[in-house]
């Protein structure tokens, strides 16, 4: 069987689709057509590959984490080093792709939403690189928490707009970016940062991120001579996980494991794990698992990692969960912190708090699979941005 989702309307089973006001339908159809052409166009694909090589620094290494493997006492663990990309995370793979497409479509202005600021920085970076005007929407709450990334975006020439509506976080920034897009659609391209939103975004972002999994497929051969037994990635919106999983969907021997943010614990309700503890609904242009009240209001999420602090998840993950092709688990704030310290101390690699959730689950999974197995953990970003959060949590003032 060859995996061929989404369908023409952008559906992954009952998930995905296009749930937007009529005003946005034509822009989305135009984007879908433009992306469809670019996908088939060798010149575009070559340009994208060259940018990834020369500007992002790809391929990112696949690193055998021998001391971590020894510590966990199970399967051999490899880390896919997306933290070594330009700007320090996987986010830039996607912003390069979408910005090149924006240029191609003749758009002169790009906008983005951002939570922790990583996608905002990655967007501001490519906007500077390509000479595009850039506006980033960011929750007022997040602007307080992520002052350094706000300044980075400004240094890169972007305008950062504080969002004061709703819960003043990522989901509200997304609402605001959509409002900007609907108003300025003639000259503006909306660069969504994850595999969510209305079709074609989930598929397009996945395709731009799929370079991660394609590299893993050949890199693992050098060490193992075969495909890995499992892939592990953290899931907020889910773009780093989709990018890793996608090239392996037709390989049933490869288990796919997504790790959501269990925050203070799934039982407390203070988490950001819609696949583990939410239910299907419609938000931000697609049908997917959501964190919501019984009467369909979106609720505030909690995670120590701002990048996972989102009440929805990409619709393809919802489909992979229901179909059983992937499974989804959750790691708490404390487990992620412990994994952060562990990897920092024994491998000298400081993971982002988001990626620390994946590292946290790698331990139990490695023991479950045993010493004959090998697993790849997506180290989606580096942890420098989180040093202040961790210090504050541990009562240290810098």
């Amino acid at each position, binding site marked *: 069987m060859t995996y061929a989702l989404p369908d023409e309307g952008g559906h992954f089973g009952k998930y995905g689709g296009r749930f937007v006001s009529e005003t946005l339908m034509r822009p989305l159809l135009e984007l879908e057509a433009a992306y469809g052409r670019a996908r088939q166009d060798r010149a575009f694909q070559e340009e994208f590959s060259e940018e990834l090589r020369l500007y992002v620094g790809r391929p990112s290494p696949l690193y055998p984490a021998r001391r971590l493997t020894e510590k966990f006492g199970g399967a051999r663990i490899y880390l896919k080093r997306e933290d070594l990309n330009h700007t320090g995370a996987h986010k830039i793979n996607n912003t390069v792709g979408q910005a090149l497409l924006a240029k191609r479509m003749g758009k002169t202005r790009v906008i983005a939403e951002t939570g922790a600021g990583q996608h905002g920085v990655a967007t501001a970076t490519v906007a500077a690189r390509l000479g595009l005007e850039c506006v980033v929407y960011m929750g007022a709450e997040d602007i307080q928490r992520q002052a350094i990334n706000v300044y980075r975006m400004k240094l890169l020439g972007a305008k950062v707009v504080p969002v004061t509506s709703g819960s003043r976080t990522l989901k509200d920034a997304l609402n605001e970016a959509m409002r900007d897009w609907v108003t300025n*659609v003639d000259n503006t391209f909306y660069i969504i940062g994850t595999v969510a939103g209305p079709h074609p975004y989930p598929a397009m972002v996945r395709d731009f991120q799929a370079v991660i999994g394609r590299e893993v497929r050949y890199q693992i051969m050098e060490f193992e001579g075969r495909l890995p037994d499992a892939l592990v990635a953290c899931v907020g919106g889910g773009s780093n996980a989709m990018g890793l999983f996608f090239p392996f969907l037709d390989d049933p021997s490869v288990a796919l494991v997504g790790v959501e943010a269990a925050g203070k614990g799934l039982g407390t309700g203070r988490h950001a794990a819609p696949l583990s503890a939410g239910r299907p609904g419609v938000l931000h242009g697609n049908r997917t698992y959501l964190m919501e009240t019984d009467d369909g209001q979106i609720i505030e999420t909690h995670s120590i990692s701002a990048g996972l602090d989102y009440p929805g998840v990409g619709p393809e993950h919802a489909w992979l969960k229901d179909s059983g092709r992937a499974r989804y688990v959750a790691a708490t704030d404390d487990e992620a912190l412990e994994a952060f310290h562990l990897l920092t101390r024994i491998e000298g690699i400081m993971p982002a708090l988001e990626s620390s959730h994946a590292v946290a689950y790698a331990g139990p999974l490695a023991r479950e699979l045993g010493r004959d197995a090998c697993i790849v953990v997506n180290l989606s970003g580096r942890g420098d941005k989180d040093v202040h959060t961790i210090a504050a949590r541990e009562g240290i003032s810098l």
Partner: protein
Amino acid sequence: MSGRLAARFRDLGARGRVALIPFITAGDPEPRITVPLMHALVKAGADVIEMGVPFSDPMADGPVIQKASERALTHHVRLADVLAMVREFRVLDSATPVVLMGYLNPVEAMGYGRFAVGAREAGVDGVLTVDLPPEEGEELAGVLRRQGVEPVFLLAPTSDAERIRRIVRLAGGFVYYVSLRGVTGSANLDVSEVERKLKLIRAETRLPVGVGFGIGSPEAAAKVARFADAVIVGSALVGRIGALASQPDRIATEAAAFIGQLRAAMDSVASGGTGTRPGVHA
């Protein structure tokens, strides 16, 4: 009672009067004022009431209506509560159509079937789901229709002839033309562009055409009333309600005064007009 929307537009057409449709958010700023406010709006000249269902993430709305949703949600106004308000309104008013306007997720949470039955029983006449384009809307439209509730759809400046045809095939009651590219309450309304677009829409449907988004003054309402079947006023009214959030007992009077001004401005145009019936404007 089904057909209340059709009856109202028929009657208005016969009288050469353009419908005035005020939008309020249910439960804004507090639930107890909503039903009295609806009656006050009708008395001041509203022909149809559009009731916003509060939602935590109103993506297509500008700041004014977002804040109204937030005020209502501080009182935990649920979709079921909104239906209860319509039921209470119906005790005294069985003639004025009520159209709910909101986002899909609260409807998904309740379930399409349960919602449609609840809407009919409460006396809701139409439902406009902002984030439900025709591509995704066939199922809900069908479920609503089977209960005699009209599925109202949006048309936008970006809708071409093919999309207009697709939407009016699915739509009931009236179609809601979004008069500008942007969110509710934006300010850059180009009346002549709207008039041109309405000609295209009328070539495809005999449904009445309402115009909304960006109509904030009696002058703008009068201009649009020259060629539309209905003028929908949301943010300008909701903004006045929001300004009185701390004095809720003044809201009905002030809102009625504003609706009265809009009514007078629209009637001054319509009385000088040709009195053509909706659906047959050239």
